């Protein structure tokens, strides 16, 4: 992306120079007035051409009106200091607090294309799977940045490539490195500790052990779990998410159960009740040893800079003993 815009910039400057030279040689009078001597006119033209070339180049290299349909990339943009260049975000953006003042343009399933285009963006970050939206933006000649949702290492990689695309390469590199070292610190801290078999639950029916949806060995949360010193008890299944039956839980006998609750979905007064739901399976080591944890927060849903917080929380929960001091 950056390379292409550099070439464009160079090409624009080259064209401008050629045009200036040609006009100098031609010695034609300008249209605006016969008063200007040919050389002055040529200079004027050259100056305009150079300015325009610079304009194109600058926008290509450093977009000023970015729309981010992906909450993760919104957070990344703020982390690399590009937050003030965001013109619109998705309906599901929650962090940082500044996003509440920004225009909302829909989300993965229902992007509001009209609104989006009316904000006159010069870069739109879309999900790779939003093929219709990509086509519409291509037709409107609006540049796009494609975002794909994968594992933990892809978070920093995306951060870097996004930084390059929006002209904040250095800041993005700094933020990404910071993340990497923080994650490495977590890994080091829990290194050598025995890795408990952990059931990582993304969701279930409130108040019941039904429709349990858990990590199955793939995806960024699974990666975070492994980094934080846990062993995904369903890791051999190699699925992003698994529909877990009570028989599976009894069979796999996890030593720790981590339940993730987003936003306001779990009220404090319900914490005990929800934890006690697991008492129906007393043979599960996690239940027997009181190692069922209900974690609330948004940092688990967004594969962005705050994933470090998620990693630290996992590590503290799995290995309280190394965080005890």
């Amino acid at each position, binding site marked *: 992306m950056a390379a292409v815009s550099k070439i464009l910039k160079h090409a624009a400057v080259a064209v401008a120079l050629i045009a200036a030279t040609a006009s100098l040689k031609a010695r034609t009078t300008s249209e605006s007035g016969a008063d200007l001597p040919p050389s002055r006119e040529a200079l004027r033209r050259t100056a305009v051409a150079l300015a325009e070339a610079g304009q194109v180049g600058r926008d290509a290299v450093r977009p000023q009106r970015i729309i981010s349909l992906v909450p993760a990339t919104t957070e990344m943009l703020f982390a690399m200091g590009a937050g003030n260049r965001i013109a619109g975000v998705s309906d599901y953006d929650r962090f940082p607090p500044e996003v509440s003042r920004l225009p909302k343009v829909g989300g993965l399933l229902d992007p509001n294309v009209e609104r989006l285009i009316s904000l006159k963006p010069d870069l739109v970050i879309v999900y790779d799977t939003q093929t219709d939206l990509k086509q519409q933006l291509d037709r409107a000649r609006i540049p796009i940045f494609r975002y794909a949702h994968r594992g933990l290492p892809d978070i920093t990689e995306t951060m870097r490539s996004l930084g390059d695309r929006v002209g904040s390469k250095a800041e993005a590199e700094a933020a990404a490195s910071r993340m990497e070292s923080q994650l490495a610190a977590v890994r080091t801290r829990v290194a050598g500790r025995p890795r408990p078999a952990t059931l990582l639950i993304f969701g279930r029916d409130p*108040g019941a*052990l*039904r429709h349990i*949806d858990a990590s199955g060995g793939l995806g960024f949360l699974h990666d975070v779990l492994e980094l934080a010193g846990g062993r995904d008890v369903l890791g051999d299944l190699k699925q992003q998410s698994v529909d877990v*039956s*009570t028989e599976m839980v*009894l*069979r796999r006998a996890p030593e720790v159960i981590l339940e993730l609750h987003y936003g306001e979905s779990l009220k404090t007064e*319900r914490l005990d009740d929800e934890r006690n739901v697991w008492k*129906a399976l007393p043979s599960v080591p996690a239940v027997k040893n009181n190692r069922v944890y209900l974690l609330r927060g948004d940092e688990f849903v967004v594969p962005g800079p705050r994933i470090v917080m998620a990693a630290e929380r996992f590590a503290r929960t799995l290995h309280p003993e190394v965080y005890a001091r």
Partner: protein
Amino acid sequence: MTNAVAADRPRVAVRIRLAWTLLSFGTLALAACLLAPLVGSTPIHLTTVFDRSVPYADNIDAQIFWVARLPRVLAAAMVGSSLALAGVVFQALLRNPLASPDTLGVSAGASLGAMVAITFALDFSLLGVTAVPLASFVGSFGALAIVYGLSAARRRGTSTIVLLLGGVTVQALLSAIIAFVQYLADFTQTFRNVRWLMGSLDVASYPPLVAAFIPMSLAWAGFATLPRVLDLISVGHESAAARGVDVERSERVALVSASLATGAAVALAGPVSFVGLIVPHLVRLMVGADHRLVLPASALFGAAFLIGCDLIARTIIAPLELPVGIITAIIGGPVFLWLLFRKS
């Protein structure tokens, strides 16, 4: 008077056929209920399950049996028999062999209730039953109320058609509202909605079974009054009335019972496709058209059928499990096509 009658097959008295039907299908259902909890992706031993020397909290086999499998098998039995019975009754009531518990929108009402509970994160419980099944049941009741109201406002002589049209309209309307609610949902909620729609029998506890049993037993009591009446009504409303059947009252009992059974089944396990459509036809192939045989046989066969489908669903791709609705569709779809081709 005593001349031998030329018949293709000697007529066996209905008493004997009924006894035989109850015995054979009853054995099938009972065997399914007793054996299914012992079979699964994890091998367990019956002796271990009932071994008193091991404290329950440590007895994995016992917990698998009592928490993971037995409620599931009982749920399958209850849902399978309720949906099959509702299917028989709707087919007779609407005089349409293609009718099913889904036709009149009761199932859609139940789905809408569940979807609203999931999307708007409703959180309440009553007597051990949580928000989603409760809202689901309320939804089914709402749909029934609309259809019932439409049918009560009907004019004489057009009851079946008005009921069918009204029910299909309600079903379409509710489906549109369901689509709207799904549109409002975010990605996670949509995911949960879709998972719910695939059906799940893993109830993992007994209170939901007891809760479902209440409306189901009311429905079954209603069904018990219907067998002969359904025979007569399916031959013609006028001739049924002329033979002493209170057609309007019987239709109301049929509608309410079948809707209660469907609502409770869908609230318990989500919408499980094809059971209510296929089981009555398969049963009629085996026992004939007499509803006095078809109703009890469908209840028993429906239970065994769903227990079997659930067994396949939870073992075929072990350690993963398939939603039971996929198995009933994979079996039900081709069977249904075969039935259609047979008829034509």
